[in-house]
C-alpha cells in the first residue's frame, strides 16, 4: 500500500543497485528485521522486478510502503517498519 506521506526521513538507506531478485528483498528483509518499529528504510534498486516485488514484500510483512519513485532505471522506495515507534 502506498501513502502520500513523504515527510518522514529515512532511518537507513540500502543500496541494492545492480542486484537481481531475490537479493534486494533479502537484503531489505535483513535490515527491516533489525530496525525498530516505525523506522523508515530507503531502498534503492535497479531490478525491474522490484517495482512489483517491493510493494509485495511490504504487504506480506505488514510494513508500510510510504513512497515509490522511478527515475530512469533506478527505483527508490521508502518503507516504514510495522508497529509504532
Amino acid at each position, binding site marked *: 500500500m502506498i*501513502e502520500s506521506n513523504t515527510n518522514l526521513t529515512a532511518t537507513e538507506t540500502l543500496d541494492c543497485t545492480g542486484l537481481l531478485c*531475490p537479493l534486494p528483498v*533479502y537484503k*531489505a528483509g*535483513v535490515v527491516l528485521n533489525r530496525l525498530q518499529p516505525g523506522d523508515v528504510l530507503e531502498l534503492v534498486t535497479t531490478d525491474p522486478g522490484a517495482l512489483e516485488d517491493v510493494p509485495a*514484500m511490504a504487504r*506480506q510483512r*505488514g510494513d*508500510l510502503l510510504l513512497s515509490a519513485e522511478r527515475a530512469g532505471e533506478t527505483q527508490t522506495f521508502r518503507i516504514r517498519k510495522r508497529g509504532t515507534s
Partner: protein
Amino acid sequence: MTAEALASAAPTAETRRKRLALVASKGTLDQAYPPLILATTAVSLGWEAGIYFTFFGLDILHQERFRKLKLASLANPSGPVQLPNLLGALPGATAAATKMMKKWMKDARMPEVPEFIDMSRELGVRFFACSTTMGVMGVKESDLIDGCDIAGAAAFLDYAAEADVQLFI
C-alpha cells in the same frame, strides 16, 4: 480505513505466519536456484519456509556435491551453449555449459549455491533430507551439510499440509 489502519489490521507475526513448502527434486545447477530463491524470499517476507530435497535434489545438501552441480549440455535446448545433442554429448560440453552459466551468475552478482544455502539457513529455512534417497543412493548423514532434518514423505506432508504455498520443483 487509512493505510496505517489497514497495515495494523494485517495478520501479525504473533498470530500465524504464512508457510512455503517446496520439493527440490533436481540436482542440476540451473534447477538448484529456484527453490533456494523462493525459500530465501519467503523468509524475507516474514514467512516460514521448508524445502524437501529428494532424489537428485539431495545433491544440493551434499557438502561435496553442492559446489559441483552441473548444467546439462545434452537434451537441454535452452542452455548457454546451444549445441545439437550429437555435439552436446562430446566430452567437456557439460563442463563448458556449467562454466558459462557460473560466469553469468557471477557477472549478475548472484550468490553461488553454497552461499544461498547459508543465507536461507541463517533466516530459518528448514531443510528436509529425503531418507529414501539417502538409502537408495548411499548418502550418509555426515555427507550432508549441518542442520538438515532427515525425514520421509509423511513428515514432509505433515509440514506441507500446514503450508499456504506448496510447489514441486
